């Protein structure tokens, strides 16, 4: 292995990432231009008002919508996007898209991030153990349960959680990020926030746990059939030593990839879960923007999703390279 090998590896990954983000941007542009409906009309408040043709035209000029889609508008869009300018929201008149998104981002990141954390902790451990003891009673239970969780729509799980813990038992709040009127920043509000997080985090995490268990178990059961595990056994290592010193790191390779990939979805969030729990995150914004045909906001969200997942892919590839020396070549 040479520095050139690793450099080439990183270089290839970087180029891929950049090309993909650019493609997301371009397809973003195209996707939202082929959608029927005149943006100018939307800018003017949709079908609800009687707007004159001149006003419409003025509006078009104002937003540069009178120029040809390609290349002018596209170049404009791409250059603006590259400069970090995602435009203004149609619906939330005149607010910067970036501002809107940043406002909603923390809620989603907290929700999905926490859920990921919990899921990784539980899911990976359970999965690795099940794979190590493949065929045993615990394996059967864990695998069965996680396949079931894996196939459960998480929003439905969320609804059941609400019905049970919020409606019927009244233990935990079922909606929102804070109690109405909480003053954000105080200790009380933090506790309040945690109580509100409990159910949605559980809903998201349960689904993820299933996924992690399935992958970790498969990875581990591949590893235990590897020749180097026979070598380890031949060396007279105890089961614990084999697990810790040889199986664990190899089995973690695909799991780490999945973890980093999933981290990308921290931003994408869980639209449906957010809808169930009235969570004030990106998911809610997406649905609102979609209903209002707020294309700039949708474009912004899509770009953010694309970029975050591409970045996650990037980290996944790099992490894989770090963990697995073979990939570096």
């Amino acid at each position, binding site marked *: 292995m040479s520095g050139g090998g690793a450099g080439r590896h990183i270089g290839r990954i970087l180029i891929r990432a950049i090309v993909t983000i650019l493609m997301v941007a371009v397809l973003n542009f195209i996707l939202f231009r082929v959608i029927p409906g005149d943006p100018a009309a939307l800018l003017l408040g949709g079908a609800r008002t009687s707007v004159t043709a001149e006003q419409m035209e003025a509006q078009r000029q104002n937003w540069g919508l009178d120029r040809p889609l390609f290349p002018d508008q596209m170049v404009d869009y791409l250059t603006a996007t590259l400069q970090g300018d995602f435009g203004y929201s149609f619906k939330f008149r005149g607010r910067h898209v970036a501002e809107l998104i940043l406002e909603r981002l923390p809620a989603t990141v907290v929700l999905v991030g926490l859920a990921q954390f919990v899921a990784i902790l539980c899911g990976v451990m359970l999965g690795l153990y099940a794979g190590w003891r493949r065929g045993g009673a615990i394996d059967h239970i864990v695998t069965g349960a996680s396949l079931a969780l894996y196939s459960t729509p998480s929003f439905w799980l969320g609804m059941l959680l609400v019905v049970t813990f919020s409606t019927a038992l009244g233990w935990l709040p079922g909606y929102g990020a804070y109690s109405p009127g909480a003053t954000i920043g105080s200790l009380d509000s933090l506790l309040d926030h945690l109580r509100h997080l409990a159910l949605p985090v559980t809903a998201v995490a349960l689904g993820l746990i299933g996924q992690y268990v399935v992958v970790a178990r498969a990875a581990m059961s591949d590893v235990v059939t590897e*020749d*180097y595990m026979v*070598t380890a056994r*031949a060396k*007279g290592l105890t089961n614990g030593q084999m697990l810790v010193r040889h199986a664990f790191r*190899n089995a973690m390779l695909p799991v780490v990839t999945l973890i980093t990939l999933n981290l990308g979805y921290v931003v994408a969030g869980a639209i449906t879960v957010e809808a169930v729990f009235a969570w004030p995150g990106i998911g809610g914004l997406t649905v609102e923007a979609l209903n209002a045909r707020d294309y700039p906001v949708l474009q912004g969200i899509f770009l953010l999703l694309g970029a975050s997942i591409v970045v996650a892919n990037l980290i996944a590839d790099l992490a894989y390279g770090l*963990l697995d020396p073979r990939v570096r070549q």
Partner: protein
Amino acid sequence: MTNSSQDKAPLLDVNCLSVDYGLKGVSLRAIDRVSFALQAGEAVGLVGESGSGKTTTAMAIAGLLSPNARVSSGEVRYRGSRLPIDDDAAMRPHRWCETSVVFQGAMNALNPVHRIIKQIAEPCMLKLGMSRGEATARARELLGLVGIPTDRGSAYPHELSGGMRQRVMIAMALACRPSIVIGDEPTTALDVITQAQILKLLGELRSRLSLALILITHDLSVVAECCDRVMIMYAGRIVEDGTVAEIFAQPKHPYTRLLIESIPNPASGKKMIRPIPGDPPNLVNRPSGCAFHPRCPSAMGVCGTEVPSLDQFGRGRVACHLHRSSRGDKVAVHA
């Protein structure tokens, strides 16, 4: 009891060992009443075609049988005491300290994510209780021993050529100073020159460290290079056992003879292709009598009905009806 002509107590004594593999209802007898003894420092070749039970024999000795294997008869004695070969935990202290294995595919047998030095040092730390520093020093020493520049110790397995990986495997096998090293086809995947290097290395190390070596291969000429004694296996049984010189000069079992004849030998000057007719036996449905009789050019009536026993013959042993009549000093094999 099998007795070699030496009167020393053998290092390893395999006695009437049979191993069955369980396969969805059917049970497959991979080795059948295998008996032999190994002296300290002795090099024995185990030769036979694919599936004849060489690996199974070796793994049984090392106590590394796969979970679906069952030792259905016999025992293995090491320095006179019985080895718990079917008890994984009980075998653990024995492994690597007494018996180590050099596996065939070194690429797969080495853990791809650890540096080779670490893998060599690992048994020193875990089995011999060395500190990390001592273990690493020992690993360096071993690398030197197998002819790999010590600075390559920080390489990962995939960065090495096939021959080097195989040497790493050997270095690793020597880590705990075992008295028996089993080489399971350590050179099959390598080309001639590398193969020669590895065999030479094994031979040198054996005499330097006075190791007992069990070399598994399907190529007789490999054994000819570096073993004292050869055992020929066919369909799970040892069909012939003798010194290298004897077997090559005077093979007794027809299978051994055909095997030797099929090796092209320019020294003989005759360009002759001599195939062994027929197909390898089916172990689930093994032929009656001598398993080789359907392919044997000198098969007789009795061969199809009666399993020949492995009897002392001259200075070696052979299991063939042809040599039944002329045998002088028959010693019962079966316990």
